[in-house]
């Protein structure tokens, strides 16, 4: 046990990816936890946006490949790996840079972790994309479900690679508590992801003839789970998602947007064109999600963490409240239209009745 650590809480924690929303908020939360002595945020490019948030966090500007010395020098007890890119960013090298960061970055981080003698906890952000997408998939994935097909999308493939490296790490360092968290897509009033931007549009493209089942996790619940993973002992792989399901059209209707069904080959092509033109960051990951949908079983998380994230519907409601600006059809309008039709029918009928 380390001097600073009591009841499983580590003394010094390294958080990667603090230049992004998730990393910055996790680091801030950990820094606010009195059980944790030091929180060190690592990111190659500091983001001034989160400077206020990261007051209590020691920030180090570092690439993941030079992390090895740091982990040994600072006597780090725990590493939280959040530096993942979920979609290629055309401004920063596109897909090649994304793969570099996700796969090579994770490899380098795990290599550094393996050499860190005092390390005893590793928390890795993964995604439910690890289950791939296939027509023969079961409706609900448990942590044991193996993907039937390698995903077409870049992010899904990266996730499979990352989890493969973590499995190797577990074999080589059985003394380290390794937690892999498979997150459903984040949503909430403040989250800004490919998917939240998608739902924020007034007109939303969908795949014709498909109404996939979706699950979201509220970003605050994701932070809570990450926090508990560091402060408590939870070895293993966990699905992290809001219980319950929304179908895509249902979600679009609840958000007051208009769905535009597009034939699937057309959507793949349109996504490719949009990407090459530099706007829109939809890839095959999103197309596959919108064809197959993805629902996971969260009973292991609820059992082991004693924590149930808010439901998918509740998390989505929170998102709707924050993004009511682009609403095309409101509930009030629908109710008014209904009233109008009924009223006009009544008027016509009473007119007919009077005449007869």
């Amino acid at each position: 046990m380390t001097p600073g650590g009591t009841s499983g809480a580590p003394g010094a924690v390294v958080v990667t990816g603090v230049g992004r929303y998730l990393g910055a908020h996790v680091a801030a939360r950990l820094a606010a936890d009195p059980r944790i002595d030091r929180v060190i945020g690592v990111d190659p490019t500091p983001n001034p946006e989160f400077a206020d948030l990261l007051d209590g966090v020691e920030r180090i500007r570092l690439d993941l490949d030079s992390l090895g010395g740091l982990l040994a020098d600072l006597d780090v007890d725990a590493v939280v790996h959040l530096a993942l890119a979920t979609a290629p960013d055309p401004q920063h090298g596109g897909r090649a840079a994304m793969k570099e960061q996700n796969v090579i970055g994770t490899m380098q981080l795990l290599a550094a972790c393996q050499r860190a003698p005092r390390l005893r906890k590793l928390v890795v952000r993964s995604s439910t994309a690890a289950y791939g997408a296939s027509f023969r998939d079961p409706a609900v994935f448990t942590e044991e479900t193996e993907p039937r097909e390698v995903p077409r999308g870049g992010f899904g493939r990266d996730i499979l690679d990352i989890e493969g490296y973590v499995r190797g790490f577990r074999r080589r360092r059985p003394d380290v508590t390794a937690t892999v968290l498979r997150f459903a897509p984040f949503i909430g009033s403040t989250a800004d992801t490919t998917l939240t931007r998608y739902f924020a549009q007034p007109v939303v493209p969908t795949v014709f003839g498909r109404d996939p089942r979706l699950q979201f996790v509220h970003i605050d619940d994701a932070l809570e789970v990450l926090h508990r993973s560091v402060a408590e002992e939870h070895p293993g792989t966990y699905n992290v998602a809001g219980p319950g399901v929304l179908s895509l059209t249902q979600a679009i209707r609840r958000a007051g947007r208009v769905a535009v069904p597009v034939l699937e080959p057309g959507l793949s092509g349109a996504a490719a064109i949009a990407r090459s033109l530099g706007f829109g960051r939809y890839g095959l990951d999103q197309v596959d999600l919108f064809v197959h949908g993805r629902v996971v079983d969260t009973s292991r998380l609820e059992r082991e963490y004693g924590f149930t994230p808010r439901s998918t519907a509740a998390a989505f409601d929170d998102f709707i409240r924050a993004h009511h600006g682009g609403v095309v059809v409101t509930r009030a309008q629908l109710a008014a239209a209904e009233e109008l039709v009924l009223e006009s029918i009544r008027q016509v009928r009473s007119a007919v009745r009077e005449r007869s």
Partner: protein
Amino acid sequence: MSGAEERGESRYDVPLTVPRPDGEPARRNGHRRSTTAATDPASLDEPDTSADEPAAAGPGEGAGAVARPGPAVADRPGDHWDRKVAKGLAFLRRRLSGDYEVDEFGFDPHLTDAVFHPLLRVLYRDWFRTEVSGVEHVPDAGAGLVVGNHSGTVALDALVLSAALHDRHPAHRYLRLLGADLVFRMPVVSEIARKTGGTVACNPDAERLLGNGELVGVFPEGFKGVGKLYADRYKLQRFGRGGFVSAALRTGTPIVPVAIVGGEEIYPMLADIKPLARLLKLPYFPVTPTFPWLGPLGMLPLPSKWLIEFCPPIPTAHLRESADDPLVVFNLADQVRETIQQTLHKLLERRPDPFGP
């Protein structure tokens, strides 16, 4: 051919067996609707209205308020339509605002009750004159695995079974169908399959549904049953690996065999054009007396007479440990298969004319 002879032979036995009470329902639910039909549809529509009433009264006060003034002039026949229109609009508003629940398999009871079941009701009640017996063998609560024979070129039997069971069962249970992955590969069809409560036929899904206490419907013959020629009608095909039995054993769920007569005649498949099927990546390409000759008109199912009989449940709770024992699994699968085959023969005797009343 022996099967056909058997049936031909049994045709002469009909007068001996029919005079028993079995013969009675044939006329009650058949075409002669003047006597009983007046009460029948009301009782059948009941689950429908009860499910939709809260929709009109609940979130849509507007709709409720409009529907209420009706009783003041209730004697006018037009008010019935007023209420129908109000109900339809309330339903539409609820759909358009996403104000409904979908379970983890994608089952949408709101849509199923309001759209799919009413359509299927017309099909099974008025078009196929379906008679259902033995619903008491289907459990009122808790899990059950309903295993049936598959037929008919297009798997209408599964849809008819689920709608008829929901209407006729005292607890109005939904049958959660397990479908081939081809169903989930096709756009639109896959969407409808999930919304009506179906999911992919695989053990994790079957066990999850049974574990949740749902009633699961499965057709172990799969495409071998649906795509068989008319000459092979009512001959049960191979039951595969018996995955449905191991799912039932693992969850200790009783198996309810069900025999469906009538499905074979709706699209009598005279030939199967295999090269065309391979080209279109389908399991078979049917040629029926009407398809593809009459084009879209050939899609209309022939109005055969349907009989559905649920058999006494086979308990499996005592066999939980044997879920991986192939001998137990195959024996049980054979027992289910035999039960269905016997019941099919029995039902066929009761129905001498496939297109009778």
